[in-house]
């Protein structure tokens, strides 16, 4: 019952529209709009909650209390902050490229939003189950790099430009080990479809068969989401928020929102690829699949936050060295070992 609450709702909506005598195409359109609205609501609520969670977690890591004034236990703090950011004046530097400057914070949200289309929220709960789901994920995510860069460039600020160039260098270099790391999983599954990957983990999660890939993925994902210890492009103690330095109010809020949306997304991918997606562990199937999925992504988010509030920041050349000299060879070796392993497995007739 609870398991199928969302799927059931979709079915009910579709049959309702069909019963009203509307063509199937119209039903598809309405359903797609409902899906998009649902995803948008999910993002908005998640981000509100995750920002609060991050602040609260940071507080507990730092032996303090955290937000506790606005609303019960400070729950409305993020909402209040958002209200503040929305009502703030948008300041555009005189030397800035006005259109690009204003456009980029809006565009940064587009890749994140597009990516949610392939998120397997639960059994049969994926908006579009693409054949090339995982690949789609990386392809669309890679576009955000240029948006970061353009935003930084348009600010006409040297700190922003340094941050923007760092963003480009960092995200490009860490995309390589990230893609190479998950190749191991794709090799085993033989498909890039999200649902196939999850179903392939019925017996054992890939975190156990591909531990190296998981570690590489988590490191690269931290770099991709620009979080400590890889928050170089923000680096508030050296280049003071980097590409976002000139953004205030809603412009800043959009970058901020996109950053948290990306955090959710990399956690989603980690869950899907390595933690068995919405599959229930230990046969605890009475808990609905989407709850499991949420639990797992929140676990991953928690891990990323844990990193953020314990580690200092790495230096830019160390970051590059680590990416190219450690992670890339390691992920290539992982592919090699996975291939040999698969070959042996098949040879012994599994």
């Amino acid at each position, binding site marked *: 019952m609870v398991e199928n609450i969302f799927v059931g709702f979709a079915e009910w909506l579709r049959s309702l529209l069909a019963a009203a005598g509307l063509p199937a195409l119209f039903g598809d359109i309405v359903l797609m709009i409902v899906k998009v609205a649902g995803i948008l609501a999910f993002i908005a609520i998640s981000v509100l909650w995750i920002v609060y969670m991050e602040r609260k977690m940071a507080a507990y890591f730092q032996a303090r209390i955290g937000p506790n004034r606005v609303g019960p236990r400070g729950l409305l703090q993020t909402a209040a902050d958002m209200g503040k950011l929305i009502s703030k004046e948008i300041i555009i530097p005189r030397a800035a*490229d006005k259109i*690009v400057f204003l456009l980029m914070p809006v565009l940064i949200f587009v890749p994140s939003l597009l990516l949610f289309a392939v998120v397997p929220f639960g059994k049969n709960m994926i908006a579009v189950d*693409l*054949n*090339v789901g995982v*690949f*789609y994920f*990386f*392809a*669309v995510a*890679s*576009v955000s*790099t*240029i948006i970061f*860069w*353009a935003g930084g*460039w*348009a600010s006409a600020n040297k700190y922003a430009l340094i941050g923007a*160039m760092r963003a*480009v260098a960092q995200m*490009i270099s860490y*995309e390589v080990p990230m893609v190479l790391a998950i190749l191991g999983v794709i090799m085993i599954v*033989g*498909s*890039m479809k999200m649902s196939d990957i999850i179903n392939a983990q019925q017996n054992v999660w890939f975190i156990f068969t591909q531990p190296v890939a998981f570690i590489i993925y988590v490191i690269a994902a931290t770099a991709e989401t620009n979080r400590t210890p890889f928050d170089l492009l923000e680096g508030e103690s050296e280049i003071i928020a980097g590409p976002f330095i000139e953004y205030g109010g809603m412009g800043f809020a959009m970058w901020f929102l996109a950053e948290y949306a990306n955090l959710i997304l990399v956690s989603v991918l980690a869950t899907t690829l390595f933690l068995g997606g919405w599959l229930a562990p230990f046969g605890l199937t009475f808990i609905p699949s989407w709850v499991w999925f949420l639990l797992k992504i929140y676990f991953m988010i928690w891990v990323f936050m844990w990193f953020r509030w314990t580690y200092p920041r790495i230096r830019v050349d160390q970051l590059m060295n680590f990416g190219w000299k450690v992670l890339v060879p390691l992920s290539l070796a992982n592919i090699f070992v996975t291939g040999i392993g698969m070959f042996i497995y098949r040879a012994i007739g599994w």
Partner: protein
Amino acid sequence: MDNIFSIAAFYLLGLVILGSAILVVMLKNLVHCVLWLAVTFIAVAGLYMLLDADFLAMVQILVYAGAVCIMMVFAVMLTQRKDMKSSSLFNAQFRSAGLVAFLTAALSAYLAMRTAWTSTVMPVPPRTAEAIATLMLTKYVVPFEVAALLLLVALIGAIILAKEVKADD
């Protein structure tokens, strides 16, 4: 391409591709050119999607919109002249360039007219990526390996170029 939506999408994408491509060439601000180039690449990926070539579309986005544009970014940042305002779009080479462009266009048009445009009867396989993989490692294995070799050479070349900077110091 059967239904009305596909046709509408095709023409819309075509318009975006052509428009943004023209802007890439005509704009004087190099950074804007790069941004429009990204738009062009993404729109081309849209065309691939329309042809059910989902894997190819993703490659287009990842490699072109993601990587090639970034390479352009690096090129732009290394360019000494900040924008192209000072350089004229219509200089002395305008005529010869126009001739070359016209000839290229004409040749393409001629070839396009000579080609027998038969839409494949064979349906698109449901798993395009696997079909491509099989083809690449069987029928087209030689070009595939040659391309890999070429990339390796380029990689080594890049390393040598980067090394030279250090020797310079």
